[in-house]
């Protein structure tokens, strides 16, 4: 799915961080924040602006788990599977969410681009285990039922 991309957010980031190799990660983070993933067009654009090979930028972007090359949903649901959450049964939450949204380990994002479900190794919210994070908000002590309810609540909002 190719779309016209507005690069002004990149120009702004380059202006702030400088058009140098060392600014690359900061600029990519800004891009990820804005587009919710890193569209392919961003790589060629940055390669030219930062005078870096596209392959180098691709290397950096694929090295870090935090960068995504695939389009993500409006709501990114991160199910914590760190040790504390895992022993307090985070996997059933993950399974319930996937079942509810028709997703799997391979298919992480719904076709309507509303939801992405993924796991993280630790959210740092162990006292609230099992925890789920939706975009930047933490939801503590979840169960499969409350997780599904949360999804439905978000669906209704739209």
């Amino acid at each position: 799915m190719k779309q016209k991309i507005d690069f002004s957010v990149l120009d702004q980031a380059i202006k702030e961080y400088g058009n140098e190799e060392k600014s690359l990660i900061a600029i990519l983070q800004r891009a990820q924040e804005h587009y919710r993933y890193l569209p392919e067009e961003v790589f060629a654009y940055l390669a030219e602006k930062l005078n870096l090979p596209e392959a180098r930028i691709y290397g950096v972007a694929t090295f870090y788990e935090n960068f995504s090359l695939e389009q993500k949903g409006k709501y990114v649901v991160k199910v914590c599977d760190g040790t504390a959450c895992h022993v307090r049964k985070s996997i059933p939450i993950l399974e319930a969410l996937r079942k509810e949204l028709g997703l799997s380990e391979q298919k992480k994002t719904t076709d309507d681009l509303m939801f992405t479900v993924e796991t993280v190794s630790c959210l740092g919210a162990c006292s609230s285990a099992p925890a789920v994070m939706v975009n930047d908000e933490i939801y503590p002590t979840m169960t499969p039922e409350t997780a599904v309810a949360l999804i439905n609540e978000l669906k209704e909002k739209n």
Partner: protein
Amino acid sequence: MDKKKYMTVDGVPVEINGEKNLLEIIRKVGIEMPTFCYYSELSVYGACRMCMVENEWGGFEASCSTPPREGMNIKTNTEKLRKYRKNILELLLANHCRDCTTCEKNNDCKLQALARKFKIEGVRFPNTASKAERDQSSPCIVKDQSKCILCGDCVRVCNEVQNVGAIDFAHRGSKMTISTAFDRPLAQSPCVGCGQCVAVCPTGALILNSEAEVIWKALHDKELKTTVQIAPAVRVAIGKELGFKEGENAMGKIVAALRLMGFDEIYDTSLAADLTVLEETNEFIDRLNNGGKLPLMTSCCPGWIQYAEKKHPELLENISTCRSPMQMMASIVKAQAREKDEKHFHVAIMPCTSKKFEAIREEFTVDGQRNVDAVLTTKGLIRMIQEAGIKFSEIEPEAIDMPFSTISGAGVIFGVTGGVTEAVLRRVSSNKNRAELVTLANVGQRGEEGIKEFDLPFGERTLKIVVCSGLGNAEKVIKRMEAGEHFDFVEVMACPGGCVNGGGQPFAVREEKSKRSKGLYDTDRLLSIRRAEDNPILNELYNGVLKDKVHELLHVHYGKHK
């Protein structure tokens, strides 16, 4: 004077004399360390861990990345180290395609050689190599990730030396690969096909695309007339693997071998290089006198042409319209064949991988037929000679066929950086006596430096000339041009040192490479014709096949491959 500094290697005291790292110190004792990722021309990466040494406290240090210190006491071969190295090799093999017998690099593979040296008799771990998926999109280079050991040599040569940056590391941990951006096929990447990555790859992960089968087929076809041209740099690089000395001119033997293989006629590309000299000089003088675009940049190197097309299209007007010597030769050969209406297969033997791309460019096809039907690299030629069972050291040398046999020294030195410039200078200079040749040899274009620049008086003006080799060095010169510096003539060769070190040449270390350049200069000195314009064949060509067709057959405008 400073007191001499010493350290100890395997109990032997060694003087420290400005060596960069322990590897160089260890070499002084007569020990060659095993390495995968170390090349003196590249930055130190320290990835393969094969060159570990043990210090006096039993700790390990990587000798490639550790500078020597006074009083250091290291051992290069201990029980612990042997076990450690064998472990690395076993782990590499566990993640490696092990179909050695059908691998292009069989017997020429560093991993295979070290596995044998360290007597790896079995691998304890299950094989996790990815399935072989060959990227054959490029006409020049074939990439096979299942044979990659992630030493990063290719990435560094592509980025640091060539400034191309077609490939880099991608992904992380066990999923790490060498990849183009988005794992696109090489043909769709910024790759210019120079083959320097193939030259440094220790395994079969990056190999040359071979056209040997097509050539054999043509040779076996009795209906076809098969002709072949041999580039200058081939003759001084082929010998070592076939029992000659590095840099020794083996042209006579090559000709004899090609005849045995079945080629009908054999020509020397140096003759076409003489044509290039005349055409390029005319163009240069025309631009100087008539306010044309300067600097004039050379056009013989297809790696450079692709680099300019992909990265600096604004420079295409600076690039000479002369076809490369390979294409000049081929267009003449094919024009004559068309006149006679004969079925003709023309092969070019080149030190170069990028020529394989040049050969398929549509600018060099006539009615859909390629002028050069196949390109064979020096390495490929060695393979074919071996396959045919020809005993290279025993066959009697033979001479090139008429009419493309008479060559000048100017054409021969095209194979080394500065050669094109020197050949043009010989033509431009109004002084035609022998002593002038010696003077012109020493104005600054010779030598192995990546960028050589000098001023030369010419009539009432002073010419500013730059000779660069290695695309990274070309980029430095281009940056200076962008900053406003003026040059009149810029020679660019994509491979460091020129064609003698092309991606299609057998691997050589630095000292061996300079022997190849010397071999070409020696050949030049021994020829009775030293200037391109003195080559009598050229007149025949200009009055014959080239009559009214100089532009059509010898010139080209690039810019189609962006």
